[in-house]
Structures are given as structure tokens and as C-alpha cells.
């Protein structure tokens, strides 16, 4: 274990997080929020100072890292980033307890969007900005950001990318890890800017446009209104609905579009599967909720928005889907687990994994009928190797195991089954709102501190795809190298 390199990277991340905290400080200056301003500046100073000291102490010539260092760097960074990011909420007194502040920040960075706030409108603008900004940063990944701006970090940045980027297989777009990180962020920033412009043309002011775009881009779902996107016009709802779907697409495809490889994009199995699942979700829900609506148009609009929001694991809402019929709620719960494409900012199992699992099941059935049949699973036009398939299966098993454990851990709470179960799914898959007590108009505030910590861990596990955290928490990883 190259501990020095792990802590060096960790120090650099501290500096970056400190620098990022200066953005909401600027917002605080604009809106004249003095208490908030000082809480941001104090936290930023602390993070930058601590980061600089750690990075200076752990500067090392040996920049060689392996997979386990990648996992350790990423998990450590995410845990501490959340711990530091929660400080402004706590210091300024806007969120009374530190555990609540931590829950809120983890929910932000992991792009979950689950909130413990009861009265969102009472929060100051700069805090709301920071809350949504964590979505944006966490969406594409903090370490990918660090990779894009720090030169000569390490030749083996692929291990860090792999640990932070979601999906069964992480590939590079360009030969250099740093260039890949840059291009991903450029695409991300460009799409974000387009959405901000489109939203500010509607009935949102600039602040609301920016904040809601952050929530969409990171597929997070923090809003500045208690009624979420339901408080805005149809135009804004449709723009956000479409952009959520766009941010749920694998970013590699956007890169391929940029370099003119349209055919490859059109042939993408995952993209078509993603769109097909979304379309069938919209169709079923529209027909199911039609009796509750006066006209077909508004039913279609709400079901489209909600499907897009849940499937991309964003968690914005335009309607209280908790009041919808059971079939619709069931479909939404399934969509929560499926999630979006690998390589996007969304959470969940990822469509590519679901497609592979489905193909594996078909292959196994075929093998039962023809015991000597040789089956090969193909994806995106290529045969998938046994190793990847195996890791998909194992990921699924671990995923189920973790969900069940988390569900057991929160079952002590005096809430209904669907509240607890949907809360676990909504946090583990980084969606945000669930059903019942944690529905679109509910909040996680009533859960105990212990449960909030369990949810925070579930959110981190969901975002980092479980294994990095397990590996970073196992003692053998940290065995000292001589």
C-alpha cells in the first residue's frame, strides 16, 4: 500500500474542496448573508490549510498506485469531503445537528437528493447554492475533476477513474487519463450551461435556473422549493425532464458524437435499452394514472417527468406519486433499482448491468435446454469476457445483500414497511424521495441519528458502487509497506 500517495492525493482533494467552498461564499457576498459567508470562509480555510499540510508532508517520489490505492483514495476522499462539506451548514446554525448536516451533504455529493429539511424556503440562498453545487461536483466525480486540473498526478490514474466512475467497465476516451477527465468535464459543463440558459428563458430566475440545473446535471434532485419542480411552469418541467434523461446517458456517447462517430452511437445497445425501459415506464404509468387526471396531456407530462426523474435517479417531482396507484409505484420502485447508463452521472444498478444480467439468464436457460451448448454473451457488438460477467453477477449479489442489511438496520424505526423499504432503495440508488413518509413531499428528518448514518453509508456505497468502500474499510488494504 502506497500510503504516502493515498494521503498526498487526499491532501490535494482537501485543497480542491476548500477552493470549491469559495463559490457559495461568493453567492453569500452577493446576497449579503454574513453569517453564512464566514462559515464558508472558515471551512474553506480549514480545508485548504489541512490539505496543504497533508499534501506537503506526504509528497513522495513513488507515484505508483495499484487498484487498492485507487479504491482507498476515492473512498477516503468521499468520506472526508462529506464531513468537511457539512461544516458550513452546522457552523452557520442553519442545520442544528451535525449528523443532519452530514446526511444532507452526503446526499448532495452522492447526487441522492434525500433531505432532512422540512422548510426548504427558510434556508439562506448561499446554503441552498452549496447544497445543489455538491450535486454538480459529485455527479461527474471529484477525483475526475482533480485529475483534469492537476498535471502529472500519476501515470496510473486509471485506477482512480475506475473506482469513481460508475459502470461495469470503465474505458478511456483519449490516450491520457487527464485528457479523458478534461473532455468529460467539458461536455458536462457545456450541457450544464445550455440547460441554465434554457431554464432562465422560462419562469425561473437566474439563481433558481442555476440551482436546478446543478440538481439535474448531477442527477441529484435538491430543489429550492418544497413543491420541487411542481412549483414551476410546464416549460421548465419539460426542459428539466428532457435534460435529466440526457444526463442519464453514457457520456462516452456524447464524445463519440463530438468526433462524428454517429453510427457507433446509434448501435449502442445500452442507449436503446435505456430509452426502451424509459418509454415503457412512461406508457404504463400514463395509462395507470389516467383516471386521476382530467386530460391525457397532463397525465403524460407528469408520468414522463416522474419516470425520467426516478430512472435517472434524480428525484425531482412534479406530482405526489405517493398518491398514485400501486402499479405505478411498483414501476417506479423497479426503475429506481435499474437506474441509468453506465458512465453517466446517475446511480442505480445501471442499464448495462441489467442488460448483461438478462442475457446471462437467457444464456443459462439455453444451457439447461442444451447442456453442451457453448454460449457467449455479446454487448455493444462485442463478446463480453467471463471476468466482466462474473463481476456483474457478484455486484448484483452484493447489491442485494447490502440493500437487505440496510433495510434490516432501519427496520427498528416506527415507520411503515413501504416507507422504510423505499427509503433504503431511494438512498442506495441515489434517488432521494421514496414512498410513504419519505415521499416527494415528506422528509428524512424523523429518522433517528443512527438510521441517518446508515442512510449516509448506503448513499456512499450506492455512488461508489460498494466495492471501493468495502476495500477501503478492510484492514488488509492498509497493511504497511516497508
Amino acid at each position: 500500500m502506497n500510503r504516502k500517495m493515498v494521503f498526498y492525493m487526499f491532501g490535494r482533494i482537501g485543497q480542491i474542496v476548500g477552493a470549491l467552498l469559495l463559490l457559495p461564499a461568493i453567492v453569500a457576498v452577493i446576497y449579503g448573508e454574513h453569517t453564512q459567508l464566514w462559515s464558508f470562509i472558515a471551512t474553506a480555510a480549514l480545508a485548504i490549510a489541512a490539505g496543504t499540510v497533508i499534501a506537503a508532508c506526504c509528497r513522495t517520489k513513488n507515484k505508483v498506485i495499484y487498484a487498492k490505492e485507487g479504491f482507498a483514495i476515492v473512498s477516503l476522499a468521499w468520506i472526508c469531503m462529506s464531513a468537511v462539506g457539512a461544516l458550513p451548514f452546522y457552523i452557520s446554525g442553519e442545520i442544528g445537528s451535525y449528523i443532519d448536516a452530514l446526511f444532507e451533504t452526503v446526499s448532495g455529493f452522492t447526487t441522492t437528493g434525500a433531505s432532512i429539511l422540512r422548510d426548504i424556503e427558510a434556508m439562506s440562498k448561499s446554503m441552498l447554492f452549496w447544497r445543489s453545487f455538491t450535486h454538480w461536483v459529485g455527479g461527474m466525480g471529484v477525483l475526475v475533476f482533480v485529475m483534469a486540473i492537476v498535471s502529472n498526478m500519476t501515470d496510473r490514474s486509471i485506477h482512480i477513474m475506475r473506482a469513481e466512475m460508475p459502470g461495469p467497465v470503465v474505458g478511456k476516451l483519449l490516450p491520457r487519463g487527464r485528457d479523458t477527465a478534461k473532455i468529460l468535464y467539458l461536455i458536462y459543463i457545456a450541457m450544464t450551461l445550455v440547460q441554465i440558459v434554457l431554464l432562465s428563458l422560462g419562469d425561473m430566475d437566474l439563481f433558481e435556473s442555476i440551482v436546478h440545473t446543478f440538481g439535474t446535471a448531477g442527477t441529484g434532485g435538491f430543489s429550492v422549493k418544497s413543491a420541487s419542480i411542481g412549483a414551476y411552469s410546464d416549460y421548465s418541467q419539460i426542459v428539466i425532464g428532457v435534460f435529466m434523461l440526457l444526463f442519464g446517458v453514457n457520456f462516452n456517447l456524447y464524445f463519440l458524437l463530438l468526433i462524428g462517430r454517429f453510427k457507433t452511437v446509434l448501435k449502442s445497445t445500452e442507449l436503446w435499452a435505456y430509452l426502451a425501459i424509459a418509454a415503457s415506464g412512461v406508457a404504463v404509468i400514463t395509462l395507470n394514472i389516467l383516471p386521476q387526471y382530467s386530460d391525457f396531456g397532463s397525465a403524460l407530462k407528469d408520468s414522463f417527468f416522474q419516470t425520467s426523474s426516478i430512472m435517472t435517479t434524480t428525484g425531482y417531482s412534479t406530482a405526489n406519486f405517493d398518491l398514485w396507484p400501486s402499479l405505478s409505484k411498483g414501476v417506479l420502485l423497479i426503475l429506481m433499482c435499474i437506474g441509468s447508463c453506465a458512465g453517466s452521472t446517475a446511480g442505480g444498478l445501471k442499464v448495462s448491468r441489467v442488460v448483461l444480467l438478462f442475457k446471462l439468464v437467457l444464456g443459462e436457460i439455453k444451457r439447461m435446454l442444451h447442456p453442451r451448448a457453448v454460449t457467449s454473451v455479446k454487448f455493444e457488438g462485442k463478446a463480453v469476457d467471463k471476468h466482466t460477467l462474473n463481476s456483474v453477477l457478484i455486484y448484483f449479489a452484493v447489491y442485494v445483500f447490502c440493500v437487505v442489511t440496510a433495510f434490516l438496520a432501519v427496520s427498528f424505526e416506527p415507520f411503515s414497511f413501504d416507507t422504510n423499504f423505499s427509503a433504503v432503495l431511494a438512498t442506495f440508488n441515489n434517488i432521494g424521495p421514496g414512498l410513504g413518509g419519505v415521499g416527494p413531499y415528506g422528509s428524512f428528518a424523523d429518522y433517528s441519528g443512527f438510521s441517518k448514518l446508515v442512510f449516509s453509508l448506503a448513499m456512499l456505497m450506492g455512488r461508489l458502487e460498494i466495492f471501493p468502500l468495502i476495500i477501503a474499510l478492510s484492514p488488509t488494504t492498509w497493511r504497511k509497506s516497508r
Partner: protein
Amino acid sequence: MKIIIVGCGKIGTSIIESLVGEGSDVVAVDSSPAVIEEIGNIYDVMCVCGNGADTETLLEAGVSKCDLFVAVTNSDELNMLACFVAERMGAKHTIARIRKPEYNDKSLDFLSKQLGLTVSINPEWMAAKELYNILKLPAAVNIENFSGGNLEMVELRLKQESILDGLSLIELRKKYNAKFLVCAVQRGDEVYIPDGNFVLKSGDRIGITAQTSEIQKLLRMLNLMQNSAKSVMILGASRVAYYLAKRLINSGNHVVVIDKNEQVCEEFAAQLPEAVVICGDGSEQELLLEEGLGTTDAFVALSGMDELNILISIFAQSQNVPKVISKVNRAQLASLADNLGLDCIVSPKKTVSDVLSRYARAIKNSQGSNSIETLYRLMDGGVEAIEFNVSKEFKGIKTPLKDLALKPNTLIAGIIRGRKSIIPGGMDEILAGDRVVVIVAGQQLIDLDDILR
């Protein structure tokens, strides 16, 4: 600068390592998923899994925009085909490894032309050439030639209690009145580009540039002269062994080749009837002694296994064979062998990556005026010796060298003017049309102007 490397074996990996180190954008292509995953784990490159001659694979690797395409798979035929396809798809320069002796005769020119190859490389042949040069001058641990063949760079190891121990370079020059220049010194892990006050110590590995005739004179004065090897024993009937034995036999030496594989031995004997080919286990010391290890002038270990080469070389050294050379491909093992007292190690891998670095930089420098003629990495890669063609545009032209403001850790080690080579002093000048040998540590030179502040 975008480079595609097809085939990630030993040679491919070392090319990737040196090119990534130079800051090029490298795409690695290999047909084995396991190999390609490992490459992606270690180097900052893009990995594409597939057949290097398949247009789909090449398209995915971005062949139409690549500046240099290198095919170094196991198969000569695949390399040629891959380069041909790549060239047609828009690769600007293509390099193929072609190592079968039957392609490396008169047909090579024809093939290269038809396939549109920029150049073909034959690592085994290059390694054999290097080995041959060392066997001609056994005192050296390494010899590199610059163009024209008149100026040489020789690496020597100062043995314990060397008469040079404690001498500074100025004193050395005064004591031995020969035209040479000590241009690089390796001591432990550090590499120095020395000035006149630098003091030599036993155990140093020093690099000297001088004219070929002066080197003989110098070695004689230093009592380092060893006669060139007349009888050579080679372990392993590999391709390198074939090329080396052929050269040695052509210049009238006695060659014994030992290999375990009967079929390989028979083929070797058929191709080179003048060589004594022994079919037997070269790791059996008894066999080596029986075949005259005790009386041979030089022992060269060229088997496919680095470990065997190292062990048998140590044994040969213990039998007081005057010159022992071992082929070691893996860099970590090479430094281990060095610690074990084997100072003469040859690696075909390194030779090839030097050649490719030269091509890559020459392409980068296509706008520049002073083109690179040859490039060698010396002292385990710590120092580079680069030969530039000087054009009229060079900024330091017609200026006495003592007035040129050179960057630190650069040294002008030789000037080749027509057929004459000059070991430069402060009053010498560089003229247009010269070729200049520059020694540099810790930086990457693309143009001769880069040596000036």
C-alpha cells in the same frame, strides 16, 4: 503526437513505456483481453482489444489521425498487413517489426515499398550488431556508433583500484594526451554530466566519446585493452544468435552454439554450417566445460529466459571467461544482474525503444530544421546521446563553444564534419552541415536549438 502500438509483448511494452514517458498520446492494441487490461493498469494509454489488422479495431484506435503506427506483434505477416491497412487508412508513418531472416534479405526493400512502410525494424538483428561491436572491443560494456562510423561512444566500468580513481577530468586530460571526452558518469543510481573538476572513483561507469582509433590508444594507455574475441560460445540458438554467429563467422571467428531443442539445432546448423552446433542442455555446467568454456574468449547468453541467462553468465564469469555478455530483457532483472556483478547486459527491447523514440521525435520535429540522426539512451536510460544534423538556421552557428550559453546538464560531445570527427574544445565552432552529438540528462530534446538557454 498520436501513436498506435499494435502488439503488447515485451518489445511493445517497452516501446509504450518510453513513448508515454516522452509525453506522446499512445493507443495500445492487442488481441488478448488480459494483456490489454494489464497495459491499461500500468501505463496512461488508451487500450483497444482486437486484431491489429482489422479495420474496425483500427478505426476504434483512431488510425486516421495517428502520426506513427507501430506493429510489433509476434507475427511478421500480421505486422506487415497491419501497417499496410493502417497506411491506407491514413496513418502518416508506419513501422513494422520484420524479423524472419527470409524477409530480411533483398526482398525487404521491395516489401517496404509495396507496403508503404516508413521503416522496418528487426530487434534481433540490431541486438546482434550491438553484441558484435562489444565482442570486437571487449573492454567496453557498451558501444554506440554515430553516423559515418568514425565517432564512437564507449561505456567503461572502472574496476576496483582503477588507476583513474581519484583523478579529476582535467588531470586525466593532462596525463593521457589523447583526444577523448568523458561525457557521462553513472555512480550508484545517480547520473552526472561531468565538468573538468569532476573526480572519478572506482566503480563508476563512464561514457567516453572519441574517434575509433583514439579509443584503442586510450584503452592501451589505461591498461584496459583486451584483445577482441576470437572464439565465442553462445547459449541458445535464437534469432539473435543466428545473426550474431553469422557476423562472427564472416569475420573469421570460431563459434560454438548450444541449444536444447534438437529441431532448432538442426535448422541452425543447416543455415550456418560453419558454426559448431551442440544439442544439449546449456544449463548443465559439465556440458559447458566439456565444450570448452574454460578456453573460450567470450560467452554470450542468449536463451529466451532472462533467469537462465543471468545464472549461467555468473557461472561463466566464475570460470574466468574474459568477456561475458548476457541478454536480459526485463528491466528489473537487468538491474539485479548488475548488482550480481554482470556489467555487460544487452537488451533488444532497449535498442528498439531507442530507435522508436528517435522516430517519434523526428516526426515531432518535422517543422524544425535540425533533424535527429541517431538517438541512444545510455547509463540505464539516465542519459541520452543525440546526433543532430545542423542546418543554417541553428542559432548557435559559427560561435566558439565557450561562448554558447548551454542549458545545465547538456554537453556537446562531438562534431562530425564530413569524414572528420572533432572532440570539441572551447574554441571549436559548429558550422552548417555538421552533425553534432549532444549528451543530455533529465530533459527531452527535439531540436538542437533546445540546448541553448
